[in-house]
């Protein structure tokens, strides 16, 4: 047995990811591969690309395969309830962006998580590993079973909790899965001190059992900040994220309304999709902001980079954000960021401006200051750049290795 061989249980992996989980798994495993001896990584579907740094295990259940379609993405996207994919009506790769909306019954969700668990157990047999590492609640039941079968230590890694996603009460089943997974685990990794506190306060997990490992980010070489891309003559404030209650897009509209009273020529851009989209458009029109508050739709690739490069201020008014990768991406592109205090990213970007998500007055003042005072804006940007030096996957992987050592020694 090799202590430094890892059996990792995932759920999604880029490009078929709905949020930060897939991105984090990619960043973490890439750096971890250099420190550990081997990584097995299970997915509930057949990954169509090629991955060199670890062994991918296709743990999809035969039931999920409908005639003519192979599994090319998870049976449901755990983070975006608006893009759950029913097992019987799978999307083909060419149409993955179309995102046929359909809701998945709780029982289907449970069934699929259980089926994944069965497949993961099968795939774990005869594999040589010293530690089990499960990412988020969809993988926890599988992680627990593999631990029972093999007696190997289990680490549950919490990238986001049901409490973040539904602060007013989410799924009891999901919360229970999270709780049991963490209880049964030998160690728990939280993506931020903020998340650690939620695990202690809301899930009553023993404080001493939890390690904080902040996410990293891959450095970029193509940053091209400046106003030259588009809307050259206007101050621009950007929101980017899923349009769900958790991300606080409603506060962004309130904020726009308030800032525009002081800086009427400002333009506000909302980038993303989600279940609040419809409502947000109507609120925008109702407040008379139709030519000021603009919705770009979901952006990726070049457009995403361009928008973050162009932004004069980036705002992330999340009600509860375990980490908040997009704020780091904005900081990389030399954009001053305003983030809510209830976000993990605040811990790695102390130079950013931190506010309560509901404090429209303070956010308004901060935006007005940043837009009017070039020096202030540049101070924040350079502070953020300094802090970004420590936000690496290498450092995250080293901390994870320390956690492995802790449970295997």
């Amino acid at each position: 047995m090799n202590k430094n061989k890892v059996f990792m249980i995932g759920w999604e992996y880029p490009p078929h990811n709905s949020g930060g989980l897939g991105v984090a798994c990619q960043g973490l495993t890439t750096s971890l591969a250099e420190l550990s001896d081997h990584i097995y990584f299970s997915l509930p579907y057949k990954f169509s690309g090629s991955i060199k740094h670890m062994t991918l295990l296709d743990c999809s259940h035969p039931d999920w395969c409908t005639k003519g379609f192979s599994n090319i993405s998870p049976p449901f996207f755990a983070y975006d309830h608006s893009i759950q994919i029913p097992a019987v009506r799978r999307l083909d790769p060419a149409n993955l962006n179309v995102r046929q909306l359909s809701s998945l019954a709780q029982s289907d969700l449970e069934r699929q998580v259980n089926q994944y668990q069965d497949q993961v157990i099968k795939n774990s047999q005869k594999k040589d590993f010293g530690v089990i590492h499960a990412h988020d609640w969809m993988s926890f039941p599988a992680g627990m079973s593999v631990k029972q079968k093999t007696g190997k230590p289990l680490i549950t890694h919490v990238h986001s909790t049901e409490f973040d996603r539904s602060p007013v009460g989410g799924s009891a089943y999901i919360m229970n899965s999270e709780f049991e997974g963490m209880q049964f685990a030998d160690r728990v990794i939280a993506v931020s001190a903020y998340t650690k506190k939620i695990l202690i306060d809301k899930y009553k997990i023993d404080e001493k059992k939890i390690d904080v490992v902040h996410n990293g980010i891959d450095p970029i070489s193509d940053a091209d900040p400046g106003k030259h891309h588009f809307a050259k003559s206007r101050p621009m404030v950007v929101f980017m994220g899923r349009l769900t209650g958790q991300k606080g897009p409603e506060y962004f509209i309130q904020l726009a309304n308030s800032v525009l009273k002081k800086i009427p020529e400002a333009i506000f851009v909302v980038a993303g999709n989600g279940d609040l989209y419809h409502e947000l458009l109507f609120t925008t029109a109702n407040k008379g902001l139709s030519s000021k508050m603009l919705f770009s739709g979901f952006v990726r690739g070049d457009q995403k980079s361009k928008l973050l490069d162009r932004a004069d201020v980036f705002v992330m008014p999340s009600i509860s954000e375990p980490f908040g990768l997009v704020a780091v991406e904005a900081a990389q592109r030399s954009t001053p960021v305003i983030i809510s205090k209830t976000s993990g990213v605040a811990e790695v970007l102390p130079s950013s401006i931190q506010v309560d998500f509901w404090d429209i007055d303070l956010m308004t003042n901060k935006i007005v200051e940043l837009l009017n005072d070039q020096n202030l804006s540049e101070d924040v940007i350079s502070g953020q750049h300094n802090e970004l030096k420590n936000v690496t996957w290498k450092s995250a992987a080293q901390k994870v290795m320390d956690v492995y050592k802790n449970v295997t020694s």
Partner: protein
Amino acid sequence: MPQICFYFQLHQPYRLGNFNVFDLENDTDYFSGDNEEIFKKVSRKSYRPMLTLLLDLIKRHPEFKFALSCSGVFIEQSLEFEPHIIELIQKLVKTGRVEILAETYYHSLASLYSEKEFELQVKQHGAVVKELFDYEPTVFRNTELIYSNYVAYQVEKLGYKGILTEAVDRYLHGRDRTKSYLSNTDKPLPLMLKHAPLSDDIAFRFSDKNWPEHPLTVDKYIKWVEIYPEDHSVNLFMDFETFGEHQWEDTGIFLFFEKFIEEFSKKSYNKFVTPGEEVSKLDLTYLDKYDVPDPISWADVDRDLTAWVDNDLQQDCINKIYELEPLVLKINNKELTDQWRRLQTSDNFYYMCTKWSNDGDVHSYFSPFDSPLEAYRRYSIVLADLVIKIDKENQPQQKVDN
């Protein structure tokens, strides 16, 4: 046996392209939708065959006459994409038996928002009609037959002799739609009202297999028309695209129309009339008043403005576009003014309609966008770009950094 007054509407909007925030201040064309493709398709299916048939019927039946109204944006696109369509209309007008109606150049809702803008657009339309067809319209039809006492007041000031509109029973109170009426204005104008049931039998129900009267035969239709007495006028007002586009050729719509004109013309007492002819021979002293305090239209089941001005999306966009009027006119830049006016075209707001029921289906059939939300999303970004352009022109001294 009554007389029949046919009026066909020709209109195509300039549809917005996929303009996104990345296009702001980058001189991207707003109207890069599938305008050429759609215009050519509708020309092939409807404009060309129907105009050719009408020309043929005019030659074959000396009694046959009718009215056309062509929005300015239709004329512009026709000149650009299918100039022979304009040539066909010119031929028709030359016969002296085709009347051209007045309307707003941009097929806009300006009559509801700005008297001055309304007047300018009607005059712009008049100028292009004069230039292309050597014709001076005497009767006015507003966008989507939108009408109210206030609209009549504006039209009267412009010197027109009559107006076409919809017969809406909440204002008609059971009176005949086949009679002409007077506007409730200081200087009353004669009004001719659309016969919605008989117009829509052709325009909407003709190919509907669930309609109990399907299939509609010429004999049956003539019987329905013949119910009315001699001094009445059955006013059949419809979209020109009814023929070949809304009702495809294989439904038999062209044959139906041709045969109807033939059969109707066979009886010597049957008459066709055009709006201008009709209003000029009316004795106004005998006409009843049609008092319409709140605007009506020919659209949807409600025959009101809710197809264009109902939800918050529509209202904010319309308010915003008309708020720009003084700023745009002050700049006096032809291209900018044209862009602003194209954004006034009623279709932009029609696409944003979120009403339920059958009307919603009709809206989505005509919309180039996936949803009303998408129509709004794009419009609002284009609006932002237009506002930026206008602000720049109005503050030419302001230095732009970076």
